[in-house]
């Protein structure tokens, strides 16, 4: 009897314990409001929170801007699809030139005033005002009347019209299938005129818009955002997000282990460490980011004018070995130029497998039987897309007959030298665009080196397919045309296809809702992120 009673008590306790544990788990799976999230900023120090001052490559600033600013439409960061913002997805006229946007009612700026259509006109004209010398002007350059406005002959852009407080139209000068992608960029965010004018230069330090988080402070290297209670969508789970500039990987590693930060991007050695860590291997976020690491060849002068030499370079290197041994697996091998996260990714594309014998034959056919000397410039620090990556490839290159001189340069000097074309090749990383057309278009022959066509590539057939893609409104057909252009590009190989960026982030066990954002892992949609009660910053 006593035994039965003891057994019953044990079973009852076990059941109670199970319920407690399960309910505890359930609590941890249930999003909760509150808490602070500290995100280290890993690239460089912040410069401004004013989106018109920021280029699309400044992830350090854009990761904050994405949380605080919104425009007519926006990018759903996890899926990279266009979704409604302050306005619904627009009605487009039959000639595909006029876009009509219907604004939500009751959307508020962080200063409490309602957002209306004229705020967008002000924001757009501010972006295109030559006195502002704004950076992302490409967003609206195709709008009717922009040239006259920039020339100062008219006071307003004629292609932007307010119909009423909640309706506006934008008229383009010509069809632009990427226009909505451009309009979803942070540079097209809405800002209140009164705040811009009263703050002047300080607007970039204390910005006002209408995103899910509002700006609280920027002290030293720390920017603090707080949940915007009047946001038109769902209130963010977190009360506060702090972006802290921490450029040294060792510092971020120590802060992460001391639980002072909630997540951090990893370098290759850190990736190796955490993927073998019994706890943290379950808290890794990996994604093929929209960056293609490549070495552009000077196709206008020097040995790389000859396609056979460029192909020999591509065949000479065992890229997978370098990624595995040198980058410790922190990159994806390249086949073509367009990375796996884009809808144009073509797994059937024929790239350049490691084939040193074929490389030697190609060099011989090009007249370089006794070898060829080449000078390569590159970033002096980055292992994934800098001179260090090329250094790992040098033994392969020398084995087939390339005599390589490496010239490491810091970024400013490298960008300047790159635009002169006075070198044989240069290592870089290009991409950063959501639209495959935009991703590929930098290599159009009319683009200069300064505009991104670093190899000074020119092939009318490639241009033709991209021109067709630029006019094709059917999505699938457009993707097919871009794939054809990519095939030509891969065959011509004006670049060495090195690797696709693999972004890796490790996060604390109490963090939920982080997403593998391919545009850049740093661009987390923080409104959907939450921390459970085990976070030291849960309150």
């Amino acid at each position: 009897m006593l035994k039965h009673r003891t057994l019953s008590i044990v079973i009852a306790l076990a059941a109670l314990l199970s319920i407690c544990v399960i309910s505890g788990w359930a609590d941890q799976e249930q999003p909760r409001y509150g808490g602070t999230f500290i995100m280290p900023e890993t690239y460089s120090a912040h410069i401004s929170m004013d989106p018109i001052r920021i280029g699309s490559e400044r992830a350090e600033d854009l990761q904050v801007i994405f949380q605080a600013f919104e425009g007519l439409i926006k990018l759903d960061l996890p899926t990279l699809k266009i979704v409604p913002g302050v306005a619904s997805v627009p009605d487009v006229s039959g000639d595909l030139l006029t876009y009509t946007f219907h604004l939500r009612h009751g959307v508020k700026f962080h200063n409490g005033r309602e957002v209306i259509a004229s705020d967008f006109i002000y924001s757009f004209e501010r972006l295109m005002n030559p006195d502002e010398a704004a950076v992302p002007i490409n967003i609206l350059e195709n709008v009717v009347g922009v040239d006259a406005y920039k020339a100062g002959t008219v006071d307003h852009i004629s292609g932007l019209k307010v119909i009423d407080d909640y309706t506006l139209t934008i008229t383009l000068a010509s069809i632009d299938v990427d226009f909505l992608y451009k309009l979803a960029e942070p540079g097209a965010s809405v800002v209140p005129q009164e705040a811009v004018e009263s703050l002047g230069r300080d607007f970039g330090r204390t910005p006002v818009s209408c995103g899910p988080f509002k700006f609280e402070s920027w002290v030293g290297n720390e920017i603090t955002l707080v949940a915007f209670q009047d946001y038109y969508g769902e209130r963010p789970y977190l009360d506060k997000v702090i972006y802290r500039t921490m450029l040294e990987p060792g510092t971020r590693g120590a802060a992460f282990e001391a639980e002072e930060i909630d997540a951090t991007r990893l370098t290759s050695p850190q990736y190796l460490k955490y993927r073998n860590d019994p706890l943290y291997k379950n808290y890794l976020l990996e994604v093929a980011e929209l960056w293609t690491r490549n070495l552009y060849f000077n196709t206008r002068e020097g040995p790389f004018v000859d396609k056979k030499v460029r192909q020999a370079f591509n065949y000479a290197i065992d890229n997978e070995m370098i990624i595995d041994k040198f980058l410790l697996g922190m990159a994806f091998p390249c086949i073509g130029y367009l990375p796996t996260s884009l809808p144009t990714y073509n797994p059937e594309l024929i790239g350049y497998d490691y084939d040193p014998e074929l490389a030697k034959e190609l060099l011989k056919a090009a007249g370089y039987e006794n070898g060829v000397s080449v000078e390569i410039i590159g970033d002096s620090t980055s292992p994934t897309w800098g001179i260090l990556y090329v250094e790992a490839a040098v033994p392969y290159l020398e084995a087939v007959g390339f005599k390589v001189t490496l010239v490491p340069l810091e970024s400013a000097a490298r960008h300047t030298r790159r635009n002169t074309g006075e070198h044989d090749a240069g290592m870089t990383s290009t991409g950063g665009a959501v639209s495959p057309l935009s991703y590929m278009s930098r290599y159009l022959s009319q683009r200069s080196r300064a505009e991104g066509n670093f190899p000074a590539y020119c092939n009318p057939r490639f241009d033709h397919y991209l021109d067709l893609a630029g006019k094709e409104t059917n999505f699938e057909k457009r993707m097919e045309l871009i794939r054809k252009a990519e095939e030509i590009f891969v065959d011509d190989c004006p670049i060495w296809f090195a690797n696709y960026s693999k972004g890796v982030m490790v996060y604390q066990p109490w963090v939920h809702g982080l997403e593998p954002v391919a545009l850049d892992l740093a661009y987390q949609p923080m409104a959907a992120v939450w921390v459970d009660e085990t976070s030291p910053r849960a309150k």
Partner: protein
Amino acid sequence: MITFLVRRLIQFIPTLLGVTLIIFILLNVMPGDAALLSGNPRGGTDPKVIEALREKWGLNDPLPIRYVRFLGNLVKGDLGISFRLDRKVSEVINERLFVTLRLATCGMLFAVIGGVGLGFFSAIHQGSAFDIIAMIGAVTGMSIPNFWLGLMLMYLVGVLLGILPTSGYGGGDLAHLILPAFTLGVRYMALLARMSRSAVLDVVHEDYVNTARSKGLAERVVQFRHIFRNALIPVITIAGLQFGGMLASTVVVETVFSWCGIGSLLVESIFRRDVPVLQGCILIIVVAFLVINLLVDLAYGYLDPRIQYD
């Protein structure tokens, strides 16, 4: 004294003029285009954007005109507008200067107190185990790269022991200051320990020290009043010079500990070719050097009344 002070202050003017000219020429002839870097440097920047920025910043004007404009603004106390941050350079430097001064002052206090103390006691107990260990420590301290030391301290004290925060400015609280100041100060402490040891050894056998002892003064009085005070003059010279150097060398410590001071501002500005900020920062560092050297000269007279200024 007043004449000396005025003469030295007047000497500042040609020195500063020379420095501004050298800074201006060097910064403007180095390769790299701030306008290009402010767009999307990895391509995709509309050339019209780059041109608009160059025009806005006056980079299309000839160098002599830009230099005269810079000097004219400088006289009015205007250091210009940062290319990178689109803010007044004086505001940017103001925000950062206090952070660096705080770090450098605490680092120097630690270096002076620790270094002079170690050096003095090592010399007094020359040849003892303390002396040997202290001097081995000093050589080690001078040899350890401070970025490595910083990271090791961060892991040991911040992660393993968990008694101090690993990094960050933390709103200026003391806990966030200890590791960076120690890391910055170690090398200077080691240098000062060796300097002060040899300075004390130079003084310890002087006649006036023997006289003091033969007068029957207590050993402690002899050590502090006659040896220590006279040994301080070369040590102060070195400490003064090192403080100026320390201001410039906070770069590494600020980066490792994620501090936002003049050092990190300099590095960020170099990479972005933010010439106005670079000019401002270097000018501030030069002025700090000049002022500290002046203070050191004035301190000589206080420590050794035989030194006359006129």
